[in-house]
Protein backbone atom coordinates (compact mmCIF):
# COMPACT_ATOMS: atom_id res chain seq x y z
CA UNK A 1 0.00 0.00 0.00
CA UNK A 2 2.77 2.46 0.98
CA UNK A 3 4.61 1.41 -2.17
CA UNK A 4 1.59 2.14 -4.34
CA UNK A 5 1.32 5.58 -2.77
CA UNK A 6 5.03 6.20 -3.25
CA UNK A 7 4.82 5.17 -6.90
CA UNK A 8 1.92 7.52 -7.57
CA UNK A 9 3.29 10.40 -5.48
CA UNK A 10 4.28 12.31 -8.61
CA UNK A 11 0.83 11.95 -10.14
CA UNK A 12 -0.82 13.16 -6.94
CA UNK A 13 1.58 16.12 -6.64
CA UNK A 14 0.88 17.27 -10.20
CA UNK A 15 -2.86 16.90 -9.57
CA UNK A 16 -2.66 19.07 -6.46
CA UNK A 17 -0.57 21.67 -8.35
CA UNK A 18 -3.10 21.79 -11.20
CA UNK A 19 -6.07 22.24 -8.88
CA UNK A 20 -4.17 24.84 -6.82
CA UNK A 21 -3.20 26.72 -9.99
CA UNK A 22 -6.79 26.73 -11.22
CA UNK A 23 -7.95 27.83 -7.77
CA UNK A 24 -5.50 30.78 -7.83
CA UNK A 25 -6.61 31.81 -11.33
CA UNK A 26 -10.31 31.70 -10.40
CA UNK A 27 -11.36 32.04 -6.76
CA UNK A 28 -8.26 33.88 -5.53
CA UNK A 29 -7.03 36.27 -8.21
CA UNK A 30 -10.13 36.20 -10.43
CA UNK A 31 -8.03 36.31 -13.62
CA UNK A 32 -10.49 34.12 -15.53
CA UNK A 33 -14.10 35.06 -16.24
CA UNK A 34 -15.95 33.78 -13.14
CA UNK A 35 -19.11 33.10 -15.18
CA UNK A 36 -17.43 30.51 -17.45
CA UNK A 37 -14.61 29.35 -15.23
CA UNK A 38 -16.27 28.34 -12.00
CA UNK A 39 -13.66 28.06 -9.27
CA UNK A 40 -13.19 25.06 -7.00
CA UNK A 41 -15.21 26.88 -4.34
CA UNK A 42 -18.28 26.46 -6.60
CA UNK A 43 -17.33 23.28 -8.42
CA UNK A 44 -16.65 21.19 -5.33
CA UNK A 45 -20.15 21.62 -3.79
CA UNK A 46 -21.67 21.11 -7.23
CA UNK A 47 -19.69 17.90 -7.58
CA UNK A 48 -20.72 16.57 -4.18
CA UNK A 49 -24.36 17.49 -4.74
CA UNK A 50 -24.47 15.74 -8.14
CA UNK A 51 -22.57 12.60 -7.22
CA UNK A 52 -25.80 10.56 -7.18
CA UNK A 53 -26.79 11.80 -10.59
CA UNK A 54 -23.28 11.33 -11.97
CA UNK A 55 -23.13 7.75 -10.67
CA UNK A 56 -26.48 7.04 -12.30
CA UNK A 57 -25.16 8.68 -15.47
CA UNK A 58 -22.04 6.53 -15.28
CA UNK A 59 -24.15 3.37 -15.36
CA UNK A 60 -26.33 4.47 -18.24
CA UNK A 61 -23.29 5.74 -20.19
CA UNK A 62 -21.62 2.36 -19.79
CA UNK A 63 -24.69 0.78 -21.38
CA UNK A 64 -23.84 2.77 -24.50
CA UNK A 65 -20.06 2.62 -24.29
CA UNK A 66 -19.51 -1.06 -23.60
CA UNK A 67 -21.50 -2.57 -26.49
CA UNK A 68 -20.37 0.10 -28.94
CA UNK A 69 -16.69 -0.23 -28.05
CA UNK A 70 -16.78 -4.02 -27.87
CA UNK A 71 -18.38 -4.20 -31.30
CA UNK A 72 -15.78 -1.77 -32.66
CA UNK A 73 -12.92 -3.89 -31.32
CA UNK A 74 -14.34 -7.17 -32.63
CA UNK A 75 -15.23 -5.86 -36.09
CA UNK A 76 -12.25 -3.50 -36.39
CA UNK A 77 -9.69 -6.18 -35.54
CA UNK A 78 -11.26 -9.01 -37.54
CA UNK A 79 -11.89 -6.92 -40.65
CA UNK A 80 -8.48 -5.29 -40.29
CA UNK A 81 -6.74 -8.66 -40.21
CA UNK A 82 -8.78 -9.99 -43.13
CA UNK A 83 -8.21 -6.93 -45.31
CA UNK A 84 -4.57 -6.68 -44.25
CA UNK A 85 -3.81 -10.26 -45.25
CA UNK A 86 -5.68 -10.27 -48.57
CA UNK A 87 -3.56 -8.05 -50.78
CA UNK A 88 -6.08 -7.49 -53.63
CA UNK A 89 -8.82 -6.62 -51.14
CA UNK A 90 -6.49 -4.22 -49.35
CA UNK A 91 -5.41 -2.50 -52.54
CA UNK A 92 -9.00 -1.90 -53.62
CA UNK A 93 -10.43 -0.89 -50.25
CA UNK A 94 -7.71 1.36 -48.80
CA UNK A 95 -8.89 4.63 -50.45
CA UNK A 96 -12.45 4.03 -49.23
CA UNK A 97 -11.28 3.26 -45.70
CA UNK A 98 -9.25 6.46 -45.69
CA UNK A 99 -12.20 8.44 -47.02
CA UNK A 100 -14.66 6.98 -44.55
CA UNK A 101 -12.40 7.56 -41.56
CA UNK A 102 -12.11 11.24 -42.52
CA UNK A 103 -15.87 11.88 -42.12
CA UNK A 104 -16.45 13.64 -38.78
CA UNK A 105 -18.66 11.27 -36.86
CA UNK A 106 -20.55 14.13 -35.20
CA UNK A 107 -21.99 15.04 -38.61
CA UNK A 108 -23.42 11.55 -38.99
CA UNK A 109 -25.85 12.11 -36.09
CA UNK A 110 -28.95 13.04 -38.18
CA UNK A 111 -28.33 10.12 -40.51
CA UNK A 112 -27.90 7.72 -37.60
CA UNK A 113 -31.13 8.93 -35.99
CA UNK A 114 -32.95 8.51 -39.29
CA UNK A 115 -31.60 5.05 -40.03
CA UNK A 116 -32.04 3.52 -36.58
CA UNK A 117 -35.45 3.09 -35.07
CA UNK A 118 -34.38 3.88 -31.50
CA UNK A 119 -32.26 6.62 -29.99
CA UNK A 120 -30.31 3.94 -28.14
CA UNK A 121 -29.25 2.20 -31.37
CA UNK A 122 -28.40 5.53 -33.00
CA UNK A 123 -26.22 6.50 -30.02
CA UNK A 124 -24.42 3.16 -30.02
CA UNK A 125 -23.88 3.57 -33.76
CA UNK A 126 -22.17 6.94 -33.33
CA UNK A 127 -19.81 5.74 -30.60
CA UNK A 128 -19.15 2.60 -32.60
CA UNK A 129 -18.17 4.56 -35.72
CA UNK A 130 -15.88 6.82 -33.73
CA UNK A 131 -14.04 3.84 -32.27
CA UNK A 132 -14.19 1.55 -35.31
CA UNK A 133 -12.11 3.54 -37.80
CA UNK A 134 -9.02 4.02 -35.63
CA UNK A 135 -9.09 0.34 -34.66
CA UNK A 136 -9.50 -0.79 -38.27
CA UNK A 137 -6.73 1.56 -39.39
CA UNK A 138 -4.34 0.45 -36.64
CA UNK A 139 -5.04 -3.24 -37.25
CA UNK A 140 -4.42 -2.81 -40.98
CA UNK A 141 -1.17 -0.96 -40.30
CA UNK A 142 -0.16 -3.58 -37.74
CA UNK A 143 -0.81 -6.49 -40.09
CA UNK A 144 0.91 -4.86 -43.04
CA UNK A 145 4.06 -4.05 -41.05
CA UNK A 146 4.51 -7.48 -39.44
CA UNK A 147 8.17 -8.42 -39.68
CA UNK A 148 8.40 -10.62 -42.77
CA UNK A 149 10.67 -13.03 -40.95
CA UNK A 150 7.88 -14.07 -38.58
CA UNK A 151 5.64 -14.89 -41.54
CA UNK A 152 8.48 -16.82 -43.15
CA UNK A 153 9.04 -18.85 -40.00
CA UNK A 154 5.29 -19.58 -39.96
CA UNK A 155 5.51 -20.65 -43.60
CA UNK A 156 8.42 -23.03 -43.02
CA UNK A 157 6.46 -24.56 -40.12
CA UNK A 158 3.38 -24.77 -42.38
CA UNK A 159 1.32 -22.77 -39.86
CA UNK A 160 -1.81 -21.76 -41.76
CA UNK A 161 -5.39 -20.61 -41.41
CA UNK A 162 -6.86 -20.01 -37.97
CA UNK A 163 -3.68 -21.16 -36.25
CA UNK A 164 -1.64 -18.60 -38.17
CA UNK A 165 -4.21 -15.89 -37.38
CA UNK A 166 -4.23 -16.39 -33.62
CA UNK A 167 -0.69 -17.52 -32.94
CA UNK A 168 1.29 -15.44 -35.42
CA UNK A 169 -0.57 -12.59 -37.10
CA UNK A 170 -2.54 -11.20 -34.15
CA UNK A 171 0.31 -11.38 -31.61
CA UNK A 172 2.78 -9.87 -34.07
CA UNK A 173 0.41 -7.00 -34.86
CA UNK A 174 -0.77 -6.63 -31.26
CA UNK A 175 1.40 -3.63 -30.27
CA UNK A 176 -0.08 -1.52 -33.09
CA UNK A 177 -3.59 -2.88 -32.56
CA UNK A 178 -3.45 -1.96 -28.87
CA UNK A 179 -2.37 1.59 -29.60
CA UNK A 180 -5.30 1.92 -32.01
CA UNK A 181 -7.68 0.54 -29.38
CA UNK A 182 -6.45 3.03 -26.82
CA UNK A 183 -7.00 5.99 -29.18
CA UNK A 184 -10.44 4.58 -30.00
CA UNK A 185 -11.32 4.38 -26.31
CA UNK A 186 -10.61 8.08 -25.87
CA UNK A 187 -12.67 8.89 -28.98
CA UNK A 188 -15.51 6.83 -27.57
CA UNK A 189 -15.57 9.04 -24.47
CA UNK A 190 -15.62 12.22 -26.54
CA UNK A 191 -18.45 10.89 -28.67
CA UNK A 192 -20.41 9.87 -25.59
CA UNK A 193 -21.38 13.51 -25.11
CA UNK A 194 -22.48 13.80 -28.74
CA UNK A 195 -24.49 10.61 -28.67
CA UNK A 196 -26.23 11.54 -25.42
CA UNK A 197 -27.32 14.90 -26.82
CA UNK A 198 -30.41 13.31 -28.27
CA UNK A 199 -32.75 10.78 -26.78
CA UNK A 200 -30.83 10.14 -23.59
CA UNK A 201 -32.33 11.08 -20.22
CA UNK A 202 -29.25 10.31 -18.16
CA UNK A 203 -25.57 9.70 -18.67
CA UNK A 204 -22.29 11.46 -18.13
CA UNK A 205 -22.45 13.16 -21.51
CA UNK A 206 -26.11 14.07 -20.98
CA UNK A 207 -25.26 15.64 -17.63
CA UNK A 208 -22.62 17.93 -19.13
CA UNK A 209 -24.81 18.80 -22.09
CA UNK A 210 -27.87 19.51 -19.92
CA UNK A 211 -26.16 21.97 -17.57
CA UNK A 212 -24.26 23.56 -20.44
CA UNK A 213 -27.64 24.49 -21.96
CA UNK A 214 -28.48 26.31 -18.70
CA UNK A 215 -25.02 27.89 -18.54
CA UNK A 216 -24.40 26.19 -15.18
CA UNK A 217 -20.68 25.91 -15.74
CA UNK A 218 -19.93 24.82 -12.18
CA UNK A 219 -21.98 21.68 -12.90
CA UNK A 220 -20.41 21.31 -16.35
CA UNK A 221 -16.91 21.39 -14.88
CA UNK A 222 -17.95 18.94 -12.16
CA UNK A 223 -19.20 16.64 -14.94
CA UNK A 224 -15.94 17.04 -16.85
CA UNK A 225 -13.92 16.15 -13.77
CA UNK A 226 -16.06 13.08 -13.18
CA UNK A 227 -15.77 11.92 -16.81
CA UNK A 228 -12.03 12.48 -16.81
CA UNK A 229 -11.72 10.42 -13.60
CA UNK A 230 -13.73 7.61 -15.18
CA UNK A 231 -11.57 7.72 -18.31
CA UNK A 232 -8.38 7.59 -16.24
CA UNK A 233 -9.75 4.56 -14.40
CA UNK A 234 -10.81 2.83 -17.61
CA UNK A 235 -7.43 3.52 -19.22
CA UNK A 236 -5.67 2.08 -16.17
CA UNK A 237 -7.70 -1.12 -16.62
CA UNK A 238 -6.90 -1.07 -20.33
CA UNK A 239 -3.17 -0.73 -19.60
CA UNK A 240 -3.38 -3.69 -17.26
CA UNK A 241 -4.79 -5.85 -20.07
CA UNK A 242 -2.23 -4.43 -22.50
CA UNK A 243 0.67 -5.13 -20.16
CA UNK A 244 -0.34 -8.77 -19.90
CA UNK A 245 -0.85 -9.21 -23.62
CA UNK A 246 2.32 -7.40 -24.61
CA UNK A 247 4.59 -8.75 -21.87
CA UNK A 248 6.94 -9.99 -24.56
CA UNK A 249 7.80 -6.48 -25.76
CA UNK A 250 9.33 -5.96 -22.30
CA UNK A 251 9.73 -2.18 -22.33
CA UNK A 252 7.60 -0.63 -19.66
Amino acid at each position, binding site marked *: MTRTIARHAGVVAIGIALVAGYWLLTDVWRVLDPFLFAGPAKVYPAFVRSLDKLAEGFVSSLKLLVPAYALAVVLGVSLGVAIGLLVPLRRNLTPYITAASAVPVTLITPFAIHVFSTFYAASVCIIFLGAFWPILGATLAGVVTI*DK*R*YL*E*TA*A*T*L*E*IRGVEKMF*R*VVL*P*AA*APTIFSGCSIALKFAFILLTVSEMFGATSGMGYFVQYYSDFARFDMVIAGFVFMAAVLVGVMALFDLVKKRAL*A*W*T*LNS
Partner: protein
Amino acid sequence: MLAVTIDNVSFSYGDKPILGGVSLDVEAGAFVCVLGQSGCGKSTLLRLLGGLEKPTSGRILVDGRPVAGPGLDRGMVFQDYGLFPWMRAGDNITLAVKQQFPALSAAERKAKALRRLADVELDADCYDKLPGELSGGMRQRCAIARAFAIDPPILLMDEPFAALDAVTRARLQELVLDLWQKEEQRKTIFFVTHDVDEALLLATDVCILGQSPGSIIHRHVFPRDKRTDRAAMFADPEMLRLRNELIAVINAEIVQLKAASGAGPR
Protein backbone atom coordinates in the same frame (compact mmCIF):
# COMPACT_ATOMS: atom_id res chain seq x y z
CA MET B 1 18.62 -37.80 -45.42
CA LEU B 2 17.37 -36.67 -48.80
CA ALA B 3 19.56 -35.91 -51.77
CA VAL B 4 19.44 -32.35 -53.10
CA THR B 5 20.14 -31.21 -56.63
CA ILE B 6 20.61 -27.57 -57.51
CA ASP B 7 20.41 -27.39 -61.28
CA ASN B 8 21.76 -24.24 -62.96
CA VAL B 9 19.86 -21.93 -60.62
CA SER B 10 19.88 -18.17 -61.20
CA PHE B 11 18.20 -15.54 -59.12
CA SER B 12 17.77 -11.78 -59.49
CA TYR B 13 16.16 -9.09 -57.39
CA GLY B 14 14.50 -6.98 -60.06
CA ASP B 15 17.28 -6.66 -62.64
CA LYS B 16 20.08 -7.09 -60.11
CA PRO B 17 21.55 -10.59 -60.56
CA ILE B 18 22.33 -12.28 -57.25
CA LEU B 19 23.01 -15.86 -58.28
CA GLY B 20 24.12 -16.87 -61.76
CA GLY B 21 23.96 -20.52 -62.69
CA VAL B 22 24.58 -22.37 -59.43
CA SER B 23 24.76 -26.13 -59.86
CA LEU B 24 25.38 -28.54 -57.03
CA ASP B 25 24.66 -32.19 -56.37
CA VAL B 26 24.53 -33.15 -52.72
CA GLU B 27 24.16 -36.70 -51.51
CA ALA B 28 21.76 -37.60 -48.73
CA GLY B 29 23.16 -37.11 -45.23
CA ALA B 30 25.85 -34.62 -46.26
CA PHE B 31 26.79 -31.64 -44.13
CA VAL B 32 27.30 -28.91 -46.70
CA CYS B 33 28.92 -25.65 -45.63
CA VAL B 34 28.45 -22.78 -48.03
CA LEU B 35 31.27 -20.26 -47.57
CA GLY B 36 31.44 -16.80 -49.02
CA GLN B 37 31.72 -13.14 -48.28
CA SER B 38 28.73 -11.12 -47.25
CA GLY B 39 26.61 -10.17 -50.21
CA CYS B 40 27.63 -13.14 -52.36
CA GLY B 41 24.13 -14.60 -52.24
CA LYS B 42 24.72 -17.50 -49.85
CA SER B 43 21.67 -16.62 -47.76
CA THR B 44 19.66 -16.28 -50.96
CA LEU B 45 20.73 -19.77 -51.96
CA LEU B 46 19.48 -21.06 -48.62
CA ARG B 47 16.18 -19.19 -49.00
CA LEU B 48 15.76 -20.78 -52.42
CA LEU B 49 16.34 -24.20 -50.87
CA GLY B 50 13.82 -23.33 -48.16
CA GLY B 51 11.27 -22.32 -50.78
CA LEU B 52 11.04 -18.76 -49.45
CA GLU B 53 12.19 -17.46 -52.85
CA LYS B 54 11.69 -18.89 -56.32
CA PRO B 55 14.61 -19.21 -58.76
CA THR B 56 14.52 -16.86 -61.75
CA SER B 57 15.69 -19.82 -63.81
CA GLY B 58 16.88 -23.35 -63.15
CA ARG B 59 15.43 -25.72 -60.56
CA ILE B 60 16.03 -27.23 -57.19
CA LEU B 61 15.17 -30.87 -56.61
CA VAL B 62 14.78 -32.52 -53.23
CA ASP B 63 14.77 -36.28 -53.53
CA GLY B 64 14.02 -35.84 -57.22
CA ARG B 65 11.01 -33.55 -56.69
CA PRO B 66 11.12 -29.81 -57.37
CA VAL B 67 10.78 -27.45 -54.39
CA ALA B 68 7.34 -25.82 -54.54
CA GLY B 69 7.43 -23.67 -51.40
CA PRO B 70 8.39 -23.70 -47.75
CA GLY B 71 7.56 -26.83 -45.78
CA LEU B 72 8.20 -28.97 -42.76
CA ASP B 73 10.55 -31.29 -44.67
CA ARG B 74 13.13 -28.50 -44.65
CA GLY B 75 13.72 -27.05 -41.20
CA MET B 76 15.25 -23.58 -41.06
CA VAL B 77 17.42 -21.97 -38.40
CA PHE B 78 18.05 -18.28 -38.93
CA GLN B 79 20.69 -16.05 -37.39
CA ASP B 80 18.03 -14.58 -35.11
CA TYR B 81 14.28 -14.06 -35.32
CA GLY B 82 13.69 -17.77 -35.56
CA LEU B 83 11.51 -17.93 -32.45
CA PHE B 84 8.23 -16.09 -32.02
CA PRO B 85 8.99 -13.58 -29.24
CA TRP B 86 5.40 -13.58 -27.93
CA MET B 87 5.44 -17.30 -27.17
CA ARG B 88 7.26 -19.02 -24.37
CA ALA B 89 10.29 -20.99 -25.57
CA GLY B 90 8.44 -24.22 -24.85
CA ASP B 91 5.35 -23.15 -26.80
CA ASN B 92 7.57 -22.28 -29.75
CA ILE B 93 8.75 -25.87 -29.79
CA THR B 94 5.41 -27.57 -29.07
CA LEU B 95 3.69 -25.53 -31.80
CA ALA B 96 6.25 -26.78 -34.32
CA VAL B 97 5.91 -30.34 -32.98
CA LYS B 98 2.14 -30.12 -33.33
CA GLN B 99 2.53 -29.07 -36.97
CA GLN B 100 4.74 -32.05 -37.75
CA PHE B 101 3.07 -34.64 -35.52
CA PRO B 102 -0.62 -33.68 -35.22
CA ALA B 103 -1.49 -37.04 -33.65
CA LEU B 104 0.52 -36.42 -30.47
CA SER B 105 -1.33 -35.39 -27.30
CA ALA B 106 -0.45 -32.14 -25.56
CA ALA B 107 1.46 -34.05 -22.87
CA GLU B 108 3.47 -35.97 -25.47
CA ARG B 109 4.28 -32.75 -27.29
CA LYS B 110 5.51 -31.18 -24.10
CA ALA B 111 7.59 -34.25 -23.24
CA LYS B 112 9.17 -34.13 -26.68
CA ALA B 113 9.93 -30.43 -26.34
CA LEU B 114 11.52 -30.95 -22.92
CA ARG B 115 13.62 -33.81 -24.28
CA ARG B 116 14.86 -31.62 -27.10
CA LEU B 117 15.63 -28.77 -24.70
CA ALA B 118 17.72 -31.23 -22.68
CA ASP B 119 19.47 -32.29 -25.91
CA VAL B 120 20.67 -28.73 -26.42
CA GLU B 121 21.66 -28.52 -22.73
CA LEU B 122 18.94 -26.13 -21.64
CA ASP B 123 17.23 -26.42 -18.24
CA ALA B 124 13.58 -27.31 -18.05
CA ASP B 125 12.78 -23.86 -16.64
CA CYS B 126 13.68 -22.33 -20.02
CA TYR B 127 10.44 -23.92 -21.22
CA ASP B 128 8.39 -21.21 -19.49
CA LYS B 129 10.60 -18.28 -20.47
CA LEU B 130 9.92 -15.84 -23.26
CA PRO B 131 12.68 -15.66 -25.90
CA GLY B 132 13.36 -12.09 -24.79
CA GLU B 133 14.27 -13.39 -21.34
CA LEU B 134 16.92 -15.73 -22.75
CA SER B 135 20.46 -14.89 -23.87
CA GLY B 136 21.33 -14.99 -27.58
CA GLY B 137 23.04 -18.34 -27.16
CA MET B 138 20.05 -19.82 -25.34
CA ARG B 139 17.70 -18.55 -28.04
CA GLN B 140 19.78 -20.26 -30.71
CA ARG B 141 19.78 -23.45 -28.65
CA CYS B 142 15.97 -23.26 -28.57
CA ALA B 143 15.84 -22.69 -32.31
CA ILE B 144 18.05 -25.74 -32.82
CA ALA B 145 15.93 -27.76 -30.37
CA ARG B 146 12.85 -26.81 -32.39
CA ALA B 147 14.50 -27.71 -35.68
CA PHE B 148 15.49 -31.16 -34.38
CA ALA B 149 12.12 -31.67 -32.67
CA ILE B 150 10.27 -31.55 -35.96
CA ASP B 151 12.93 -33.90 -37.30
CA PRO B 152 13.10 -32.68 -40.90
CA PRO B 153 15.17 -34.71 -43.38
CA ILE B 154 16.84 -31.47 -44.48
CA LEU B 155 18.08 -28.71 -42.23
CA LEU B 156 18.94 -25.24 -43.53
CA MET B 157 21.01 -23.06 -41.23
CA ASP B 158 21.76 -19.44 -42.13
CA GLU B 159 24.80 -18.24 -40.16
CA PRO B 160 23.13 -19.49 -36.99
CA PHE B 161 26.10 -18.73 -34.74
CA ALA B 162 27.35 -15.50 -36.32
CA ALA B 163 26.00 -13.28 -33.54
CA LEU B 164 27.37 -15.38 -30.67
CA ASP B 165 30.59 -15.10 -28.69
CA ALA B 166 33.44 -17.49 -29.51
CA VAL B 167 32.92 -19.84 -26.56
CA THR B 168 29.16 -20.21 -27.05
CA ARG B 169 29.71 -20.63 -30.75
CA ALA B 170 32.19 -23.47 -30.23
CA ARG B 171 29.79 -25.23 -27.83
CA LEU B 172 26.91 -24.97 -30.27
CA GLN B 173 29.00 -26.15 -33.21
CA GLU B 174 29.83 -29.30 -31.30
CA LEU B 175 26.25 -29.69 -30.22
CA VAL B 176 24.93 -29.55 -33.78
CA LEU B 177 27.60 -31.99 -34.92
CA ASP B 178 26.67 -34.35 -32.09
CA LEU B 179 22.96 -34.20 -32.81
CA TRP B 180 23.61 -34.75 -36.48
CA GLN B 181 26.06 -37.63 -36.00
CA LYS B 182 24.07 -39.62 -33.46
CA GLU B 183 21.08 -40.00 -35.74
CA GLU B 184 20.80 -43.24 -37.64
CA GLN B 185 19.42 -41.46 -40.68
CA ARG B 186 21.54 -38.34 -40.84
CA LYS B 187 19.91 -35.16 -41.97
CA THR B 188 21.18 -33.37 -45.03
CA ILE B 189 22.37 -30.04 -43.65
CA PHE B 190 23.09 -26.84 -45.54
CA PHE B 191 25.02 -24.48 -43.33
CA VAL B 192 25.84 -20.96 -44.49
CA THR B 193 28.84 -19.27 -42.88
CA HIS B 194 31.65 -16.84 -43.59
CA ASP B 195 33.98 -18.54 -41.11
CA VAL B 196 36.46 -20.91 -42.76
CA ASP B 197 37.28 -22.73 -39.51
CA GLU B 198 33.61 -23.31 -38.79
CA ALA B 199 33.18 -24.81 -42.24
CA LEU B 200 36.25 -27.06 -41.84
CA LEU B 201 35.03 -28.34 -38.50
CA LEU B 202 31.46 -29.06 -39.51
CA ALA B 203 31.37 -29.86 -43.19
CA THR B 204 31.60 -33.05 -45.14
CA ASP B 205 31.31 -30.87 -48.19
CA VAL B 206 32.58 -27.26 -48.45
CA CYS B 207 31.46 -24.97 -51.26
CA ILE B 208 32.74 -21.45 -51.84
CA LEU B 209 30.28 -19.11 -53.45
CA GLY B 210 31.89 -16.39 -55.58
CA GLN B 211 30.40 -13.00 -56.14
CA SER B 212 28.49 -10.94 -58.72
CA PRO B 213 26.65 -12.90 -59.68
CA GLY B 214 27.13 -15.75 -57.22
CA SER B 215 28.24 -19.13 -58.40
CA ILE B 216 30.21 -21.98 -56.88
CA ILE B 217 33.88 -21.30 -57.55
CA HIS B 218 35.39 -24.01 -55.39
CA ARG B 219 34.26 -27.24 -53.79
CA HIS B 220 35.93 -29.73 -51.50
CA VAL B 221 34.31 -33.02 -50.50
CA PHE B 222 35.89 -34.67 -47.49
CA PRO B 223 36.57 -38.41 -47.41
CA ARG B 224 33.91 -40.38 -45.55
CA ASP B 225 36.09 -41.04 -42.54
CA LYS B 226 36.65 -37.36 -41.77
CA ARG B 227 37.46 -36.89 -38.10
CA THR B 228 35.73 -33.96 -36.58
CA ASP B 229 37.23 -32.80 -33.38
CA ARG B 230 38.64 -29.40 -32.91
CA ALA B 231 41.97 -30.43 -31.37
CA ALA B 232 42.80 -32.97 -34.07
CA MET B 233 41.69 -30.61 -36.78
CA PHE B 234 44.37 -28.01 -36.18
CA ALA B 235 47.10 -30.61 -35.78
CA ASP B 236 46.34 -32.29 -39.08
CA PRO B 237 48.68 -30.93 -41.82
CA GLU B 238 46.17 -31.86 -44.51
CA MET B 239 43.52 -29.71 -42.76
CA LEU B 240 45.94 -26.80 -42.51
CA ARG B 241 46.74 -27.10 -46.20
CA LEU B 242 43.05 -27.14 -47.03
CA ARG B 243 42.41 -24.15 -44.77
CA ASN B 244 45.10 -22.15 -46.63
CA GLU B 245 43.67 -23.27 -49.94
CA LEU B 246 40.15 -22.10 -49.05
CA ILE B 247 41.41 -18.76 -47.73
CA ALA B 248 43.50 -18.32 -50.88
CA VAL B 249 40.44 -18.89 -53.07
CA ILE B 250 38.39 -16.36 -51.08
CA ASN B 251 41.21 -13.79 -51.14
CA ALA B 252 41.81 -14.23 -54.87
CA GLU B 253 38.12 -13.48 -55.37
CA ILE B 254 38.40 -10.29 -53.30
CA VAL B 255 41.48 -9.13 -55.28
CA GLN B 256 39.72 -9.87 -58.54
CA LEU B 257 36.61 -7.93 -57.50
CA LYS B 258 38.69 -4.95 -56.40
CA ALA B 259 40.54 -4.95 -59.72
CA ALA B 260 37.26 -5.12 -61.60
CA SER B 261 35.71 -2.22 -59.67
CA GLY B 262 38.99 -0.21 -59.80
CA ALA B 263 39.03 -0.41 -63.59
CA GLY B 264 35.66 1.29 -63.84
CA PRO B 265 35.09 5.05 -64.17
CA ARG B 266 35.72 7.13 -61.06
